[in-house]
């Protein structure tokens, strides 16, 4: 029983990370119908920048409380990633706004490769150790162990989603975003500048990615230039699973994917009598994705929108 609860907890933490990253994918898709493949690499840049900041703090003021170090590192990583995202949007996506949909998809992949290569040059190709900034002694919750940093992931993911929902449904920027999502031309006629809204969306997503990058690097104590790629792919899967373009769907998809993966890795060996090992955990995740897409092509919570097939 303890094992099952622990596996569910593992899945919840992993799923929260996926959800946090999936929010960025789904927000951009909701407005532009563009899959921003560079999103995972923006996350990696966030982790790397925060690591550099931590290194500087250690050199200049090593007695700074660790929690404060974490806050400072994140506070630097977020605006850096926002600026990078704004630049990416301006250089790689905006000139292609009215071209066929495949063109920006290809530039997105190009940007992803460029970011990875730059990071490899700047921060070296070797895995870098990310320090523990929170106490490492785990809490026990209902028979499952949860480290403080994992609890932080759960809290931050929940807060981010709630904040994002509030922003989109209650604020002026949110209303403008919804308007641009529905029809950029009409929104423009109503006095909304779609380019500015789109840039804002990218920056918002990048800010979330930077936070996710810090959390992921701290959770696994490792940061490397390739860390964003697979994570981005999984988060994209989560976004599709939940219904891309839908914020609640991104969170639901992320959590579902995380839990399926954890249970898959934990039990696949016993279930198949050792025929399939735990390295086949992705089979479960993608099998579920296929089944969901067969019965609900627009994802779990995706709406069927006629003009956007």
């Amino acid at each position: 029983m303890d094992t099952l609860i622990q596996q569910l907890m593992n899945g919840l933490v992993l799923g929260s990370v996926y959800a946090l990253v999936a929010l960025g994918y789904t927000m951009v898709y909701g407005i532009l119908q563009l899959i921003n493949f560079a999103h995972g690499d923006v996350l990696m840049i966030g982790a790397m920048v925060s690591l550099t900041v931590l290194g500087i703090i250690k050199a200049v003021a090593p007695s700074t409380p660790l929690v404060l170090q974490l806050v400072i590192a994140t506070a630097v990583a977020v605006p850096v990633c926002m600026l990078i995202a704004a630049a990416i949007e301006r250089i790689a996506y905006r000139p292609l706004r009215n071209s066929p949909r495949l063109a920006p998809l290809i530039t997105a992949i190009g940007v992803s490769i460029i970011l990875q290569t730059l990071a490899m040059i700047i921060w070296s190709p070797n895995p870098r150790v990310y320090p523990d900034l929170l106490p490492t002694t785990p809490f026990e919750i209902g028979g499952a162990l949860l480290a403080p940093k994992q609890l932080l992931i759960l809290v931050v993911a929940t807060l981010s989603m709630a904040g994002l929902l509030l922003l989109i449904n209650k604020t002026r920027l949110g209303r403008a975003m919804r308007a641009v999502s529905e029809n950029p031309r009409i929104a423009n006629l109503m006095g909304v500048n779609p380019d500015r809204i789109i840039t804002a969306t990218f920056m918002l997503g990048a800010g979330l990615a930077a936070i996710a990058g810090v959390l992921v690097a701290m959770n696994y104590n490792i940061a490397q230039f390739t860390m964003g790629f697979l994570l981005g792919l999984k988060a994209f899967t989560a976004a599709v699973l939940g219904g891309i373009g839908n914020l609640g769907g991104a969170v639901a998809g992320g959590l579902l994917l995380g839990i399926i993966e954890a249970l898959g890795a934990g039990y696949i060996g016993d279930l198949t009598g050792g025929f399939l090992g735990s390295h086949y955990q992705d089979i479960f995740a993608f099998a579920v994705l296929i089944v969901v897409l067969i019965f609900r092509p627009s994802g779990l919570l995706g709406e069927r929108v006629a003009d956007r097939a």
Partner: protein
Amino acid sequence: MFATLVKASVAKKLLLTSAAAIAVAVAGCAPKDSTVKIGHVGPLTGSIAHLGKDNEAGAKLAIADLNKADIKIDGKKVTFTLISEDDGADPKQGTAAAQKLVDAKVVGVIGHLNSGTTIPASKIYSDAGIPQISPSATNPKYTQQGFKTTFRVVANDATLGGVLGKYAVNELKGKSIAVIDDRTAYGQGVADEFVKGVEAAGGKVVDRQFTTDKATDFMSILTAIRAKKPDVVFFGGMDAVGGPMLRQMDQLKINAKFMGGDGICTGELIKLADKALGNSRVFCAEAGGVVGPYEKKMADFKERFKKEMGADVNLYSPYVYDAVMVMVESMKKANSTDPKKYLPELAKIQYEGVIGPIAFDDKGDIKGGTLTLFTYKDGKREALKVIQ
């Protein structure tokens, strides 16, 4: 136009004949001298070039020593020359370098450094009938391809895994042992041999889990392992995966000992695992190490190496030195530098090297190759003992 062409070719012919005449004359004057080419391959460029250079220096020192020793084979004085090639630790470049050495008609090859380059190159040497001694390739496959020309002077991963398996049961008193590997050729191989070693020593493997060499989240497989209450966890893979894995074991309060092969046995693991490294919690092994009377021999060799080559022994240069010596020893025994004739002598050689006694089993692996067992204490790697 035409005339000049004809003239040129006549001139060329004349030149050639006179050159041939001189060559015959020279050969006639000194019939008792012969030059023997020995090849060496290692990565002289790229990220592990420092190891390749170290190997090359070992070969150079051996060749210099041999030429000083005034060796006569089949009544002729033999001068050895070293032809050194670069494989950049890249399998493609490795096979190209191997072909170059075969074309240059070397009588034997010392190398390569990595298993990844040694294995594909070994087919080329085997086809050409040229003996190859690797100083450092540890993948068991190298000598298991059925080639008669493949030899190595280090213990392979199979020995390493087996020794660690027995150590887990006999010394660490592991009652229930869990095994994880990263599904790479190396990780899987060393983990399989570890399991065999555990079972041979009467121990029990209670769980076998898998990950990849790019994974960072091991919480699920570790939770599954925790349910089986292991006292030893073995990981076949590299330090960049093993470090975070150790930390996650702490997060799940798994207090088992942690073991691994040379992939995790690095200085980098100290940073990667940090506090989770513990004291005498992590045990790992590396091929190599000398015991008893050879300790002094090795120390003397290191001193002489530094004096002659102007650099410290980095890792495998003593193995390269011995590999060259063993090869030439078998040429002396066969009284021939012809690969066909000295190869059978190499297969049954008994030689006292710097690294210890060298003899090969029927596959070409060194008999009784040594391993050094390490643990980590107070954030430092410590050699525990050398195992034969």
